[in-house]
């Protein structure tokens, strides 16, 4: 990944220097090596902090909503670095007329999978001070206070990368990538099928034990590109602490189900919700259930594969299946 990384950073600087863009949305090294955070760089000087490594999982599409409009107002252009999966979100936001396309320069960047620091820790590493990617491109050397160790990258990928949709960019102005598109990685619906095979009572118990961990930090909503409504049902403006107080008990109790339905047909399975959840709740199991059902009921559909698609929930055909197909009518 190093080679791509160097090229990406050099190209971003170049585009800034020559004035093609006046801002760059990328990832900035944080306090720790693994907390690369979304950041908008406003000068070539500032770009010294731009990073692109195995910990740049954050999807930057959502930041283009405000930044594309702001760039237009300033008469400039903003460059955004998008990994293959991120481009689906960008297209979906274009479909929803949320991004001023003409003010954005999309630099598609190749990606070989992002790593999850928690999964590295689960491998038994303590006091991690840094990681280096080995020349084989398949393993990481993990540096710790107690010496070095090695871990296979495939074993520590974030969930969305474990089930990568493919390495092709759905939209870009310019592409820097060494990837060969091998298509989707793994079976992303396997987890959904496992749940479907359980009894309803066990499924309820499963969700109850997962969802009772939720602390309603709203991180899943805030990171989600599809959750970009100007006014969200979960914001209680009267509370004085926006994004924290629930509007009513129904919304509080049904938060996850409501949110999943709101994004059904628009969710690109970008994986941000699961990645940012501090409680480790497998939110992708909701999204992938909807995606799987949509594919099975109405034909294959990938939100964000193209800008301007008509989503399955704002569409119909005369031959659509009847809800009876999913509600056992007991021999009626």
């Amino acid at each position, binding site marked *: 990944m190093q080679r791509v990384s160097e090229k990406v950073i050099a190209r971003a600087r170049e585009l800034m220097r020559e004035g093609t863009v006046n801002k760059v949305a990328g990832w900035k090294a944080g306090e720790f090596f693994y907390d690369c955070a979304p950041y908008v760089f406003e000068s070539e000087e500032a770009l010294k902090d731009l990073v692109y490594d195995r910990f740049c999982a954050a999807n930057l599409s959502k930041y283009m909503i405000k930044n594309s409009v702001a760039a237009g107002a300033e008469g400039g252009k903003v460059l955004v670095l998008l990994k293959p999966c991120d481009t689906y979100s960008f297209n979906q936001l274009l479909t929803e007329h949320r991004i001023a396309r003409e003010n954005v320069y999309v630099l598609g960047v190749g990606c070989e999978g992002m790593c999850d620091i928690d999964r590295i820790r689960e491998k038994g590493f303590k006091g991690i001070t840094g990681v280096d990617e080995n020349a084989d491109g398949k393993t990481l050397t993990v540096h710790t206070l107690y010496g070095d160790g090695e871990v296979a990258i495939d074993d520590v990928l974030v969930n969305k990368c474990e089930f990568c949709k493919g390495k092709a960019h759905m939209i870009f102005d310019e592409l820097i990538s060494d990837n060969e598109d091998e298509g989707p990685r793994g079976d992303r619906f396997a987890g959904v099928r496992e*749940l*479907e095979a359980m009894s*309803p*009572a*066990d*499924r*309820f*118990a499963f*969700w*109850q*034990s997962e*969802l*009772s961990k*939720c602390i309603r930090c709203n991180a899943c909503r805030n990171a989600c590109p599809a959750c970009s409504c100007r006014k969200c049902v979960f914001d209680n403006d009267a509370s004085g602490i926006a994004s924290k107080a629930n509007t009513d008990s*129904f919304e*509080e*109790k*049904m*938060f996850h*189900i*409501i949110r*999943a*339905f709101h994004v*059904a047909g628009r969710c690109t399975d970008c994986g941000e919700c699961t990645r940012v959840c501090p409680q480790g709740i497998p939110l992708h199991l*909701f999204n992938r*259930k*909807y995606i799987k*059902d*949509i594919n099975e*009921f*109405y034909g294959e559909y990938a939100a964000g594969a193209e800008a301007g698609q008509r989503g*399955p*929930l*704002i*569409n*119909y055909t*005369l031959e*659509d*299946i*009847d*809800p*009876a*197909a*999913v*509600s*056992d*009518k*007991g021999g*009626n």
Partner: protein
Amino acid sequence: MSVNGNLTAAPAANAPAAEWKPRIVAFCCNWCSYAGADLAGSSRLAYPADVKIIRVPCSCRVNPMFILKAFERGADGVILCGCHPGDCHYSTGNYYTRRRMALLFSMLDYIGVERGRTRVEWVSAAEGARFSKVMNDFVAKIRELGENVKVGDLRCKE
């Protein structure tokens, strides 16, 4: 008298357990099944009193959240009745209903509200007898399934 002022009769030790009554919500489109319910009533066709009918201007007025809310408040079953496909007063409303409900019911099943507790039926204004049959069938199905999981406790692990 209980602390909050409600009258609570202590059940006699040897009294049979109070019979469980299913709580059932029926969303009925004003232009078809709600009129069908009327017709059922005036034709003296019975349907169980456990069914609480909510009139809506079109089946597609039913925001999926209404159904979720009914379950959160303790419904054991929710049925939505609309005009037959092709006969919606607003031409296409029920085609959208069809998609939304198929997805919502499947999701409800996925979280543990089994399939039989949700249903969509197309009942025209002229089908009073069918309305009564649909409701009787649905209530029978819910009785068979018994009490629903406590959807309102989805985030409260015991």
